[in-house]
C-alpha cells in the first residue's frame, strides 16, 4: 500500500520545485543572521539528532525556510535488519523539524555490531531487492510518510548481480510506493566507472516517482596502469557534463526540487547560491519551453 505524499505543495514547509542548498554547520550563523535568498535547505539527519547548538540552529532556520532531511545512517540494505534505535531517532528528528522531504540511500553500512562509516554498495540481486523493500516499508510505516531513495555512486560491481541498478530502483519504488532521489552526479560517476549510458539510466527511472534531484561535484582518481575512477566527493562545482545530464533529467521528470550538495572544502554560501542559480535557470527554461510529452 502506498503511503500518502507528505503534504500538498502549498503547505508551509513543502519543498518547492526550485533549487535548494545543502546546509553545513559553517553556514548556520550567516543563515540565521542574514536570511539569504535560498528556497530551501537540506541537512544530513544524523548531524541534527540529540541536543546542542546544531539542532537549535535548525529549529531557527526551519521557522523561515522549508527543510529536507537526508539520512545516511539507516543502512536500508543491511541483511540483518535496520537499527530500531536509529529509526526512532530519525522519527524524533522528523517530528521536531517537520521536513518537506525525507530521504535515504540505496546502500548499506551496518553488519553485526559494526557500523562502517560509508555508503557501501549492494549486490543487485533478488535477495537484496527483497531486503531493501522490506526496510523501506518499515521506515515509511514508522515515519508515516513516503521517503525518497537515492541512487548510489559506486566504485565496484559484484559478480552475482542480476538486476540493472536502474531497474532495481524502479522496482523498489513500484513495490513500496517510495519516491526516488535522482542524484545526477552519481549517475554520471557510476556510468563513467562502469561503462553505462547515463541517459539510458535516467530514462529507466519512473518519472512519477522522482521527488528530488541532487547535483554535486566529483573528482577523478588516478589508479595503477593509467586507469581512473570518478569519485563522488562533493568537493567542487557541478561539472559541465553533469549539468547536461541534469537538463535531460528535467526533460524526463519535469520540474522537481534540485539540491546543490557540497560537503568537503565547503565554500562560502555565495558560491553555493551561484550553483543554485544555475539549477534554477534550467528549471525556468523548462517552464518556458514548448510543452512536450514526457517519456512513459
Amino acid at each position, binding site marked *: 500500500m502506498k503511503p500518502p505524499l507528505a503534504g500538498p505543495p502549498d503547505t508551509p514547509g513543502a519543498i518547492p520545485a526550485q533549487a535548494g542548498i545543502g546546509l553545513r554547520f559553517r553556514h548556520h550563523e550567516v543563515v540565521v543572521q542574514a536570511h539569504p535568498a535560498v528556497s530551501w535547505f537540506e541537512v544530513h539527519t544524523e548531524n541534527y539528532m540529540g541536543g546542542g547548538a546544531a539542532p537549535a540552529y535548525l*529549529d531557527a532556520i526551519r521557522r523561515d525556510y522549508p527543510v529536507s532531511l537526508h539520512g545516511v545512517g539507516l543502512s536500508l540494505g543491511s541483511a540483518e535488519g535496520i537499527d530500531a534505535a536509529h529509526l526512532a531517532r530519525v522519527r524524533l528528528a522528523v517530528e521536531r523539524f517537520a521536513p518537506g522531504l525525507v530521504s535515504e540511500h540505496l546502500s548499506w553500512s551496518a*553488519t553485526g555490531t559494526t557500523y562502517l562509516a560509508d555508503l557501501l554498495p549492494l549486490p543487485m540481486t533478488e535477495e537484496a531487492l527483497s531486503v531493501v523493500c522490506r526496510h523501506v516499508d518499515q521506515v515509511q510505516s514508522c515515519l508515516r510518510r513516503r521517503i525518497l531513495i537515492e541512487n548510489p555512486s559506486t566504485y565496484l560491481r559484484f559478480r552475482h548481480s542480476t538486476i540493472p541498478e536502474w531497474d532495481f530502483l524502479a522496482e523498489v519504488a513500484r513495490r513500496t510506493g517510495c519516491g526516488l532521489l535522482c542524484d545526477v552526479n552519481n549517475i554520471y560517476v557510476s556510468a563513467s566507472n562502469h561503462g553505462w549510458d547515463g541517459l539510458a539510466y535516467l530514462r529507466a527511472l519512473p518519472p512519477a516517482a522522482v521527488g528530488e534531484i541532487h547535483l554535486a561535484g566529483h573528482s577523478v582518481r588516478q589508479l595503477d596502469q593509467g586507469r581512473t575512477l570518478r569519485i563522488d566527493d562533493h568537493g567542487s562545482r557541478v561539472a559541465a557534463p553533469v549539468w547536461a545530464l541534469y537538463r535531460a533529467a528535467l526533460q524526463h521528470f519535469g520540474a522537481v526540487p534540485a539540491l546543490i550538495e557540497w560537503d568537503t572544502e565547503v565554500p562560502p554560501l555565495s558560491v553555493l547560491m551561484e550553483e543554485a542559480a544555475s539549477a534554477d535557470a534550467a528549471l525556468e527554461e523548462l517552464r518556458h519551453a514548448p510543452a512536450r510529452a514526457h517519456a512513459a
Partner: protein
Amino acid sequence: MHPPAPTLHELQRSLRDSLLHHAGDPACAHVIADGIDPAQRLGIYRHTIESTLARALRLSFPAVRHLVGPEFFDGAARLFAAESPPHHAGLDQFGAGFPQFLANLPQAAALPYLADLARLEWQVDLVLHAREAAPLAVERLAHQDESALAAWRFEAHPAARLLWCEFPADAIWRALLERDDAALAAIDLADAPVGLLVHRSGGGIAACSVDIVRLDACAWRLTSALFSGLPLHAALEQAPCPDAHAVLAGHLAHGHFADTCCARPMFAP
C-alpha cells in the same frame, strides 16, 4: 574459478573484514575487476571510512590533536578505529573509548597527562551535544518546607558532568586550544589532582561554549553526592562542607541541576 554466490549476510560480513582488517581475499573474489584490481576498488571505500572516522575524532579531540600533532593523531585514530569500530550510525559515542586507548598506547607513554586531557575533551564533547533540559531554579526550592528540602534529590543537568583528573587537564586544555605556548610551558603538573565540573553554558543557538571549573575537595565530594541522587540530608552527611550552602547556591545559579518534576520520591519516608 569463482566462488559460489554469497548470501547478502555473508557478503556484508566479508566486506566488513576486508574494510576493517584488510582481510580482503574473500570479498575481492566477489568483485568484478573490469581492468582494476578489486582490492583497489575496495580501497576507495576503506579510505572513506578511515577519513570519516578520523575526522570525527579530530572534531571531538582538538586539543589532543594539537598536542601530539596531526600525524601521530591520525595514526592513533586509524589504530583505534580498526580496534574499536563504531557501533552505530550517529558516531556520537565513537570517541568514548579513545581516551582509554591513548592511555594504553605505548607510543604515548611519554605524555602521562594525555589520557586525562582526552577524558576531559570527551566530557566537553558529551556536554556540547547533551539534550536540552530546563535547569532547576532556586525558586522551586524556596517554596519547600524544611523536611521536603532535606529529602530533595537533585539530578545533574544533562549538560553538566564531573571529571576527576590526576593531572591539571583543564589548564592544559585551555592553553592548547588558545595556542598559548607560554601558558602551556608554565603549567605545573603537580598542581593536581583536580575535580572538574564541565558545563555547557547558554542554550539554543548559543549553546556552543563550555565552562570548566575546579571544585575544591569538599565541593567535589558534595557535588558528587548530590549528582548521584542522594537526598540532600544524606548528601550533606556524606560530604559535610563548611560552605555547603554556597556550593549548592552556586550550582543552582549556574543551572547545574535539571528541573525534574519528581525530585522527591513519590512516597516520603
